[in-house]
């Protein structure tokens, strides 16, 4: 056999969204290339044009059903700018933060317990019949139950602040439309002690997994990279708001204290022909070396400290285990993610204790502007929303750089690294293919989010209706 063999993993499972991996093997069975293709797109940036600006925070949530709150809040923050509000009321900010931390808590719990734990608990090449959340429930019923109830708590926090667990309406331009009742506040606060215990357990499981497998983790999809995230001006970890900071693999700052409005000056997205997801990189470093990681591993790399005590202690332990420099291990994302989960819970506890959370000053208005940027740290990484709004209040243009998009190059490198190491020159089993997916899952990709944009079209486009008949054709010249 002297032809190139093509192996496909399709669809990726236990991730959000639609992706596939293609692996090309040369006649000797060595891996020539491995790519992560993101195969879906919808077209948000085009079809929200002409819609009134106050609809956008509710509309863009439909980019993703796991992290709708991220888009809801990023869009609301941008629309604050459109209505001329640079600082919302204390109640509004706290309600939004509560919503956001609730989301971080539920999304991270979902990812760890429902999506990733089967690989970590049973092994990457264990029986696929049980390598899922129900299999975990069978073998580790208490753990599965904790994961489910942790996600439930996060969703309850979202429901109280946004009005619905998935796709609520709580954040509006200039503020919010609701605050908590005393009953809601007390109900949620009563669950904190148990949730905290579980969150600590989760950190322990992720930490122990990493430390017990440190040698393996240092070889599996491990590579140095730049890292990007938001931090407060003083360098403290903050998932809701801040300025942009990027560090290189040695921990040295390459960007610091960059206002989010200037994101387009520092970032750019490259288009490649084989994926609907683009490849962002830092402009000043160029496409070869300017790519970077985002998300939990990156956020712990760029911040100087976490502002909540237990999570901060966990972070110190983490950084020490990483050797004092930004993490290189894809698998270390899980530990970083659980530390963030604990931090989110500590923040939720503080906010529930704050009387402003029941306040009734919900919304402000200022002088209308025509352009604004809203940036937030979504569960998966830095999320940028940028809108231009006409004088008649309709959206003229939108640009979205979505978290997972920034991890496109890192995920592709992870895929290639694992494919070369495990699939070259050997019989390819289902379990070995799952190794590739494990590398992708570590990044908790949200592939729906990452492919919002319209326009990623073939040069020659044949348009088929649902019966497969060609109903149109289009050409676009170079």
């Amino acid at each position, binding site marked *: 056999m002297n032809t190139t063999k093509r192996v496909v993993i399709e669809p990726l499972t236990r991730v959000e969204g639609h992706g596939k991996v293609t692996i090309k093997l040369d006649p000797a069975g060595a891996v020539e290339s491995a790519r992560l293709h993101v195969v879906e797109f919808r077209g948000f940036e085009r079809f929200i044009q*002409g819609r*009134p600006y*106050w609809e956008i925070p*509710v509309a863009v949530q*439909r980019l993703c059903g796991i992290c709708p709150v991220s888009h809801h809040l990023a869009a609301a923050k941008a629309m604050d700018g459109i209505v001329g509000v640079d600082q919302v009321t204390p109640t509004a900010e706290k309600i939004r933060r509560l919503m956001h931390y609730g989301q971080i808590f539920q999304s991270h719990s979902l990812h760890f317990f429902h999506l990733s734990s089967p690989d970590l608990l049973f092994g990457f090449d264990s029986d696929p019949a049980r390598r899922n959340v129900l299999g975990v429930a069978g073998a580790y019923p208490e753990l599965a139950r904790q994961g489910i109830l942790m996600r439930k708590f996060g969703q309850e926090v979202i429901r109280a602040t946004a009005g619905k667990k998935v*796709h*609520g309406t709580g954040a*509006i331009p200039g503020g919010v439309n609701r605050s908590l009742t005393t009953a809601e506040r007390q109900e949620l606060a009563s669950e904190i002690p148990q949730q905290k215990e579980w969150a600590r357990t989760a950190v322990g499981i992720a930490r122990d997994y990493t430390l017990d497998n440190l040698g393996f983790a240092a070889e599996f999809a491990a590579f140095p990279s730049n890292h990007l995230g938001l931090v407060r001006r003083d360098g403290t970890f903050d998932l809701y708001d801040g300025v942009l900071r990027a560090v290189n693999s040695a921990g040295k700052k390459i960007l610091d204290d960059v206002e989010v409005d200037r994101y387009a000056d520092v970032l750019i997205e490259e288009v490649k022909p084989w994926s609907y997801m683009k490849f962002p990189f830092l402009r000043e470093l160029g496409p070869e070396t300017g790519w970077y990681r985002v998300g939990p591993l990156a956020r712990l790399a760029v911040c100087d400290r976490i502002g909540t005590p237990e999570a901060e202690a966990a972070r110190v332990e983490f950084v020490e285990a990483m050797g004092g420099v930004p993490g290189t291990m894809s698998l270390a994302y899980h530990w970083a993610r659980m530390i963030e989960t604990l931090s989110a819970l500590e923040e939720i506890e503080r906010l529930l204790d704050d009387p402003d959370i029941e306040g009734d000053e919900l919304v402000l208005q200022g002088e209308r502007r025509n352009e604004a940027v809203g940036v937030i740290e979504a569960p998966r990484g830095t999320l940028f929303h940028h809108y231009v709004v006409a004088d008649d209040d*309709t959206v003229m243009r939108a640009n979205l750089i979505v978290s997972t998009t920034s991890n496109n190059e890192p995920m592709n490198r992870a895929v290639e690294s694992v494919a070369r190491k495990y699939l070259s020159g050997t019989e390819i089993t289902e379990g070995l293919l799952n190794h590739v997916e494990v590398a992708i899952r570590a990044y908790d990709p949200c592939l729906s989010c990452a492919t919002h944009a319209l326009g990623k079209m073939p040069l020659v486009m044949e348009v088929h209706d649902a019966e497969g008949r060609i109903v149109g054709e289009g050409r676009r010249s170079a």
Partner: protein
Amino acid sequence: MSESFTFYIDGVPVEAQPGMTILEAAQGAGIWIPRLCWHEDLEPFGGCRVCTVKANGRPCSACTQPAEPDSVVENDTPQLREWRRALVELLFAEGNHFCMICEKSGNCELQALAYRLGIAAPRFEHHWKPREVDASHPDVLIDRNRCILCARCVRASRDLDGKTVFGFTGRGPDRRVAVSSAARLADTDLEVTDAAMDVCPVGALVRKREGFSVPIGSRRFDDAPIGSDIEASGAAEPARQEE
């Protein structure tokens, strides 16, 4: 001196005054007849046909048909429910109704009616015909994607505001609400305080910048199905709301 009389809706005796329509009499008796284009402050239009009932065996719009002594009217029957469902499904298939991002969701009569009629999904193929949004006016927006041609705005502007801001133009699938003789809402004398601004049953004619200021849970139909207010007010038994 007017003499009241009795007629029957689904076997229930209903008192009416001469000149009352079937719908008005039913309303007074706490019987809900589904409707869309009817509004208590406006002359009936008979356009939507959702209030179709059978009076002495003949289908007619309850909002325009005068009540008659001893007539036998059918309202809540499987056949009429099926007709009304088809009408409402056609409205959804004709326009571009994205309830999930519409600021009127939860306060929308079309949506609430569809819920109460038990419509899970329109069976008809969607037209997907793009319709114009007019955002020219500083304080008011028309989104024709959501307009169901009920003519409430036309009637209200004419009869309550003494203006003629709105009118229909076009025929068949091209029929739409146009604004007086001008091209844009901004060129009319519509004011955000006009009565015409308070009658739109859907999210077509809206005040700008109100958006989603009413939270989920506090919207008109969040807790009570459409028609339940009428049923609660009258002597008749509320119609079954759950199937």
